[in-house]
């Protein structure tokens, strides 16, 4: 599993590189409940990887393990060739893992601009004394990052809400701002937790387009959880299927769709 694979080229001309992250035999328990049971899979550089499964399958828990919010009892995570038992959230962030949330977790009291600017926190270096002076190096730094953030705002087509407090935005736009905040980190691995939940068809199309563009233009590796099977099958290169904490299938969308275990899990065959 951890062996680096050679890069391949997809039909649409993108290059999929070696293994960026390998999740090996992860088990996560809360008291007596096992959320994930010995799951192993990998994410390769440049691909769009989907994690699917019925409700309660352990998908969000898996993302939480990957960016260090939960600490698994067993197993290891290898990211960029570095193997560790678990992550710490800020280490995950410094190493280039960004994330959006199932129920939008924006900074409600701040404007769109400030939310996305906060994604640059790790890249801004001027300490508090420069901040107090403001004029000079702190301002220069602020403006440099502002420029980058403005490209993201343009990319996501949200310049009109730049100064709006995000608490006042409709849900679909909030999701977009949250994506912008994650992008501002210039991540190597972008985790999206149900990016299209609660959206109408038009909004879903926009979001799909953004995801594809991010992957193609910025070359960002993406792992996403999504319930809309149509979207998953269109977007992703490879799919992992979880059910009740077990990894029941892993492969291309076509393979997964034909997998009998997956069909059973979704149609609800009795577990014995």
């Amino acid at each position, binding site marked *: 599993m951890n062996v680096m694979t050679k890069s391949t080229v997809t039909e649409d001309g993108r290059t999929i590189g070696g293994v960026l992250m390998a999740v090996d035999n992860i088990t996560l328990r809360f008291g007596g409940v096992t959320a994930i049971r010995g799951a192993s899979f990998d994410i390769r550089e440049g691909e769009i990887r989907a994690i699917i499964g019925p409700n309660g399958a352990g998908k969000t828990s898996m993302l939480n393990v990957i960016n260090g*919010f939960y600490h698994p009892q067993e197993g290891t995570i290898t990211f960029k060739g570095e193997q560790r038992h678990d992550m710490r959230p800020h280490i995950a962030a410094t190493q280039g893992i*960004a994330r959006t949330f199932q129920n939008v977790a*924006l900074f409600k009291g701040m404007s769109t601009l400030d939310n996305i600017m906060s994604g640059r926190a790790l890249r801004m270096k001027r300490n508090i004394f420069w901040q107090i002076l403001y004029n000079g190096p702190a301002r220069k730094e602020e403006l440099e990052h502002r420029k980058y953030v403005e490209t993201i705002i343009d990319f996501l087509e949200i310049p009109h809400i730049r100064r709006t407090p995000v608490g006042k935005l409709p849900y679909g736009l909030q999701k977009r701002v949250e994506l912008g905040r994650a992008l501002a980190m210039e991540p190597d691995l972008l985790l999206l937790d149900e990016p299209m939940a609660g959206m109408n068809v038009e909004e879903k199309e926009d979001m799909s387009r953004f995801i594809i563009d991010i992957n193609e233009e910025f070359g960002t590796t993406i792992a996403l959880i999504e319930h809309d099977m149509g979207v998953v099958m269109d977007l992703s290169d490879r799919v992992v299927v979880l059910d009740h904490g077990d990894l029941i299938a892993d492969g291309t969308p076509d393979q997964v769709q034909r997998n009998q275990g997956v069909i059973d899990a979704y149609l609800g065959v009795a577990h014995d």
Partner: protein
Amino acid sequence: MLYRESGQFKTGYAADQAVFPILQDRWGMLVMLAVAFIGVPMIMDDYWANAVFIPFLVYALAALGLNILTGYCGQLSLGTGGFLAVGAYSSYKLMTAFPELDMILVLVGAGASTALVGLLFGLPSLRIKGFYLAVATLAAQFFLIWLFYKVPWFYNYNATGQITVPPREALGFLVTTQNATPIVKYLFVLSVVTVFAIAAKNMVRGRVGRMWMAIRDRDIAAELIGIRPFKTKLMAFTVSSFYIGVAGALIFSVWLGAAESGETFGINESFLVLFMVIVGGLGSILGSFLGAGFIVLMPIGLKNVLVDWFGMSAVFAKHLEITTFGVLIIFFLIVEPHGLARLWQIIKEKLRLWPFPH
């Protein structure tokens, strides 16, 4: 008609990031500063200085400090009284140990000591949140007051247990004791508060402010974009305590001239400053000033109305004042929980469109 931004174009991000992007606001601020530094001193006498302007300014500074912690970083603190006391007592120790020290350095020293103490009492924020943390800060309040009352070293072993300010100068001007002129005292405090207000504005509009607000709004999401909650909270505790420490030093040395731990810096003081922050507006620099003005002026106004106009006895008026104060606070929280700063913002929005209804 007058307050309008049409025709004012920004040509770069720098102009867009300015504190007052609108021309009228910039002028308004300049006029305010001119009035504060030139106009007000013309009418200054002992009464105005000691009853209105200096208390307003020092409380505004304390409110700024608390607003950084509670309004921007979202950590509720009820220990303000205790931190004010640290500022007062450390300034006293500095003044008596180093008689030659300029008052400006005394203030910096007092701020730094308070910042250290604040850092210490901020440590529990690693594990606890919300009201639990608020109660932890009450521990600071009671412990510090007890310390300054129990350990004679802090008040130089004098018999009264009080601390009294010695005459000290700032840049060659006498600023403490009765002998200092009210104008000098006022200008000294005003300058200090102005510098600190600008510094606060600069902090909250940049990277540091965004980190604080991120922790306030969603600490988990903040952590996952690489902001370390503990470090960020401790920074807020430290900076906030620095401000409150300087305010405490000013209360003792310039405004009151004497202090006694529990009497001057009791739990009531903590609530008073918290009221200022909430009535003024959580997470607003302007709000800290508006809140301080409101809370400082209201009792004076109430007393004038009740005693002078209605001829009530002073004791009865005092009780009625307490009740009225409570009623007004509740009224305020119900009508505008976001504070005076929000009201001001709404007025500005209206002004922009005036005289057209939409």
